[in-house]
């Protein structure tokens, strides 16, 4: 099973090693632009109110949250247009499926690939945060697998969605009404306590919030012993559900 799935990974690597520079902007530069513009720029202004972020500097608050949000963005993008291409436009999966590979090998290979991409992005991100003096705990290393886990959840969920689509119109809808609101309202840029309590309750139901909280807790060494296991459990269930749906979706889509 894994040997076959690994070939799907290798195929992506073969393509990626030629075009990796194209993904630098969204994977690395964009988050760092946010980090410096908002973390340092805004942070200076916000420093006048030292308790606004629970005793953290704005950079400390923002950095780990931005890692979680970037993982979500990369993961969702990678599971929309590129996967649609492999299903419909370029028919890559059709070609793979006329070899001994099955849909499950493909899914495992793709999820392995996105995990690798997320792991590289999260690692570089962590190193930068460490340089900026944001990381305050050895547990920060664990924020990397958490970023991968939450990213895989988003990736699998979007993958499942993509298998149901006949064109790319649905993607802009998803970005507009799901990804962007999550990006803005999951506690990445400001503490949720600023929001009405109904919205806070809503945030508890959404995945990015749990990723942000857990990654921030690990990076800064401020884990909440009650909430942390809940965040982790949520993310595990989120990823498992996404993978289950993606597995079903791909089989349904390809085996007509």
């Amino acid at each position, binding site marked *: 099973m894994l040997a076959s799935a690994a070939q799907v990974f*290798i195929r992506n690597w073969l*393509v990626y090693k030629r075009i990796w520079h194209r993904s630098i902007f969204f994977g690395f530069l964009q988050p760092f632009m946010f980090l410096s513009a908002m973390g340092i720029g805004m942070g200076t202004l916000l420093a006048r109110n030292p308790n606004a972020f629970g005793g953290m500097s704005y950079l400390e608050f923002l950095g780990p949250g931005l890692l979680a949000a970037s993982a979500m963005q990369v993961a969702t993008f990678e599971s929309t247009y590129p996967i649609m291409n492999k299903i419909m436009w*370029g028919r890559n999966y*059709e070609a*793979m499926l*006329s*070899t001994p590979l099955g849909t499950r090998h493909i899914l495992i290979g793709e999820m392995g690939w996105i995990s690798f991409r997320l792991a590289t992005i999260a690692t570089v991100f962590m190193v930068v945060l460490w340089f900026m003096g944001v990381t305050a705990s050895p547990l920060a290393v664990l924020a990397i697998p958490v970023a991968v886990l939450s990213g895989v959840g988003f990736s699998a969920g979007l993958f499942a969605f993509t298998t149901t689509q006949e064109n790319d119109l649905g993607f802009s809808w998803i970005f507009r009404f799901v990804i962007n609101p999550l990006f803005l309202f999951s506690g990445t840029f400001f503490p949720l306590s600023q929001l009405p309590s109904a919205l806070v309750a809503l945030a508890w139901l959404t995945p990015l919030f749990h990723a942000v909280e857990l990654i921030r807790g690990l990076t800064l060494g401020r884990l909440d012993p009650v909430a942390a296991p809940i965040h982790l459990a949520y993310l595990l269930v989120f990823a498992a559900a996404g993978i289950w749906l993606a597995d079903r979706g791909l089989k349904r889509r390809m085996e007509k």
Partner: protein
Amino acid sequence: MSTAAPLVHARNLTKRFDAFTAVDAIDFDVQPAESFGFLGPNGAGKTSTMRMIACSSPLSDGELRVIGMDPRTEARQIKARLGVVPQIDNLDTELTVRENLEMYARYFDIPSDVARTRADELLEFVQLDERATDKVEPLSGGMKRRLTIARALINEPDLVILDEPTTGLDPQARHLLWDRLYRLKQRGATLIITTHYMDEAEQLCDRLVVMDKAHIVAEGSPRELIDRYSTREVLELRLADGVRAALNGKLDGLADRVEDLPDRVLLYTDDGERTLDELNRRAIPVEGTLVRRSSLEDVFLHLTGRSLVD
């Protein structure tokens, strides 16, 4: 040939898409080392049948054995021994020509040194060795088709399934492909080919079936089918529009069968010249005539009521 177990054995093979039946309880057997053709107009169910044989599409009903195995439970083992050329190219456009072959070989778990050697041989076989390091996208349609065929042979398959291998190619590219397929056949490969081209079927197929509206309507060798469904010769007439409208019945009794096509009228007869004499005696003004031997095209026309290439 009849003693060996068939390589593909289908009984009552059926494919439904929701309420629509694309393949309706068809029976056929493909023998080892045979070239077996599927002819039929658009939408007849050829691709649906190919996809079931290739284990890409689950059967809705009936029985199917491919290389002695059951596609429902042994798809992986069957696919390991198949070569598939799909109707629409699905080459990996992000890889080079050679990478397409070597990556595909990986999906079959072929060791990379073996894959390299085979890729070299196959690129030469389909005359693409000079394009080995090029990207796939800028290749011409004929080159892509040849690469797809080379790719289908990377695992040295026992059975090669080709869905319209030469559609859309210029005559020269088609002849090159025919030559390559003929060589494969000489080496003992079993081929299943769908096509809209009668000359292709006559050249390549030992035996074929004609499909129409999800059913098999005839089966046999090209020669047998012509003998069974057509006369020895055909007299083709081209008529001016006015003449055509005013014919009413003047062609009666001239031929065994008359086929009225948009651009010409076909008279099926055992002796074309005699029919032509008779036509002249009746003083029917024609713009052009042609006497020729019956071909598969005529069989197809008779069986499906449609001309093939539309």
